[in-house]
């Protein structure tokens, strides 16, 4: 009687399995280190499916493209937050940075007649400076990032509220306001979106393809080892936070343009969306692992999620509940994946 080949060869091998199975195993091995990002892409697709089911209005090309302008600001800040978290730190002050620099820009132009172009540049410089201040406190005084950025979260927003009180400023030049309406001619693609992608590509290249980016990963993996290896740890930290501040200011300029108004409570609470997106996108909260691509996917995931909920008539406040829960689930999942990938490492 012919013996079953499988009995003789109990170990799974490509000889007894089908070619498709073997290829699948190879693909699995290739993708495994990117498990979190793969899941993010999967969730994004699911979000589209669910969104479409929730409401027929959702799967409308022009509508979706237009809706991206609502979360482009958070998306830009998420790019900076990716650097911060990979380096082993956290920046809670981004939204407050955004608000203060936006208010300064508005005050300069509306109350002091500074040309709008100059006001924008000053805002960007100020945001960078405020970020660098965070970095300096953390690097030189060795203060914990959490405590420092929690304090500057309050301080920067407080400075915004001292500046503007409860007033709104809205006297902006016509060329400035409404950047979210600008689309590429003959298409529905907002220019903002293109700007975001360009930024994502540039920052992605910096993070993954430059010496500085390698230093950021090293710092987040082991600050001691990075220092012993001759990496200028303090400098890297300050630059990372300065970058985060710059991007926050940039997001602020765009937000003021979109809303055509500057108030002290701009982007209140937006740091939550930003951190959620970064963690959801596969960046490890403890540092040393992550990538820009994952953050981009996750940013769209969270953004479209909010859009979909909005279309389904879920109020902004109720959406909060969803995003908050999402953050927790994202971290639990991230914990789990990191443990899994370490076993197969």
């Amino acid at each position, binding site marked *: 009687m012919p013996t079953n080949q499988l009995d003789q060869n109990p170990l799974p091998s490509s000889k007894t399995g089908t070619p498709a199975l073997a290829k699948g195993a190879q693909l699995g091995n290739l993708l495994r280190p990117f498990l979190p990002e793969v899941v993010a892409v999967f969730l994004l697709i699911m979000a589209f499916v669910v969104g479409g089911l929730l409401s027929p209005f959702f799967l409308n090309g022009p509508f979706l493209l237009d809706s991206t302008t609502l979360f482009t600001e958070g998306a830009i800040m998420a790019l900076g937050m990716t650097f911060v978290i990979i380096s082993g730190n956290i920046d809670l002050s981004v939204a407050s940075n955004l608000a203060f620099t936006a208010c300064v820009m508005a005050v300069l132009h509306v109350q002091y007649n500074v040309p709008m172009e100059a006001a924008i540049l000053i805002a960007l410089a100020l945001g960078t400076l405020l970020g660098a201040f965070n970095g300096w406190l953390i690097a030189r005084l060795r203060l914990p990032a959490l405590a420092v950025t929690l304090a500057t979260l309050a301080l920067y927003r407080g400075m915004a509220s001292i500046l503007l009180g409860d007033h709104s400023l809205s006297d902006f030049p016509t060329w400035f306001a409404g950047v979210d309406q600008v689309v590429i001619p003959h298409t529905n693609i907002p220019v903002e979106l293109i700007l975001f992608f360009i930024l994502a590509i540039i920052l992605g290249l910096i993070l993954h*393809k*430059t*010496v*500085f*980016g*390698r*230093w950021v*990963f*090293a710092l987040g*993996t*082991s600050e*001691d*080892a*990075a*220092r*012993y*290896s*001759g*990496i*200028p740890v303090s400098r890297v930290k300050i630059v990372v936070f300065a970058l985060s501040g710059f991007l926050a200011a940039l997001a602020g300029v765009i937000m003021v343009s979109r809303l055509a108004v500057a108030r002290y409570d701009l982007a209140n609470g937006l740091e939550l969306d930003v951190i959620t997106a970064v963690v959801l996108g596969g960046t490890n909260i403890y540092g*040393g*692992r992550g990538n820009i691509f994952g953050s981009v996917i996750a940013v769209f995931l969270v953004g479209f999620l909010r859009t979909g909920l909005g279309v389904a008539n879920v109020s902004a406040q109720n959406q909060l509940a969803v995003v908050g829960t999402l953050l927790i689930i994202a971290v639990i999942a991230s914990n789990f994946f990191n443990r899994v990938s*370490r076993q197969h*490492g």
Partner: protein
Amino acid sequence: MSEQTSILTTHDLHMAFGGVDVLKGINFSLFAGEVLGLVGENGAGKSTLAKIVAGVHQPSQGEINYQGQTVQIPSPHVATKLGIALIHQEPLTFPDLDVAENIFAGRQPLNGGVVNWNAMYKRAAELLASLSVQIDPHSKVRGMSIADQQMIEMAAALSQEVKVVLMDEPTSSLTPNEVAHLFTNMRRLRDQGVAIVFISHRLEEVFEICDRVLVLRDGELVGERVTKATKVEEIIRLMVGRQLSALCEKKTGANNGQLLLEVKNLSRTEKFADISLDVHAGEIVGLSGLVGAGRTDVGRALFGMLDTDSGEVWLSGKPVKIKSPREAMGYGLVYVPEDRQHHGLLMPMAISQNMTLSILEQLSPSGWLRGQAEQTVTNEYTEKLHIVLRNISQAVRELSGGNQQKVVLSKWLLTRPKVLILDEPTRGIDIGAKAEVHRLMGELASQGLAILMISSELPEILAMSDRIVVMREGRVVAQLDKADATQERIMAAATGQVLDEATIESNPVEDHS
């Protein structure tokens, strides 16, 4: 003294860390009412043995017999319940709590579920008084001297009806007065029937306080003596006595070139004082001494990781002030850390990324990473050092200890240093890799590098060094030429003994009594 009256006996105890045997076949007995000294070189396994008895580590093999019964000690908590206490070299205290609470942490005396502070302070005062120490049980521990913190740890041990006290290098941070005080307390405990294990490298103290002495060497128990019936020389002989392995490469003659590294009276409070040494091109200077002598701190200070209070460092005839590893690298001085897992490597990252970590700016002057260049350089050194790997993109944590060390060395050699400080370069790696590292060191020296090798392995020091500098308690205590150096002489200097040369020479080298 039969096994029946021993309070603790170990049978065939083995301990392995990451595949490397640290303790082999340890059989010994501890008796109530004695002070047992435990001596040996760095890495002989003394601390590990104490930690096993205290429940911090679990042995990979063997059993422990306590009070006549076989026991498992899975955690320090269980050890404490059994009446076994460990006094750490660096005391584990709660700085924000007061002394009494430190003693009774987690076990505060209760009065019907409510913490009884009066009883706690009273009891703490009693315990402290029994140790004749003047510490106010109400004062907070933060800011207290190491000696006081040790007393508090002892008081905590006493508060638990302790039967076995293990003390790991307790005197390394104490003044002579504090040591005398500690010994008085130890004698008192001993007379009350407590068994004390005293781990120390200060042999004069071992002879003063201990009734018996056990000698560990390379993880094995090589001798047991009654202190009254033996001499220091014999203990030293047991500690170091071994056949020098033929695998150790003997270095072929020094090439005394230019004076590349000159250290003059370098000092830093609490760490080291008045350190002076020089290293020439083509020379290997071995820096020997026991754990806590301050050698790593000197290395770190030279590399810019530690500030110094006074003294000078001269490189190639010019004085320099190095404030960071980056600056040191700029001068061509590099330091390969002792702890390769936490300081030397980024464990989850790829081999190629680790190897190129310190030369990224040179490899990529434009700032853009050049994968091709990284690969070339990594492959070059993988071949040169015979590193065994699957591919250069795998995580460095998957490599064996020896190969990991080679990656670390490659990383630093890629920076083309002129002065190379190696801290325990062959610790925890297999014989074959050791030999390769030694051969590499020889080559580097003949190419004109100045090498300062910090090592606790005497055979390595003797084989590789042109000159040997011995440190003890933060100071340089001896400088020996290769021709004059023997294991015994180095160990004597490291432990602060004056040798009777005649005694050493008249006894054979090997002894496994």
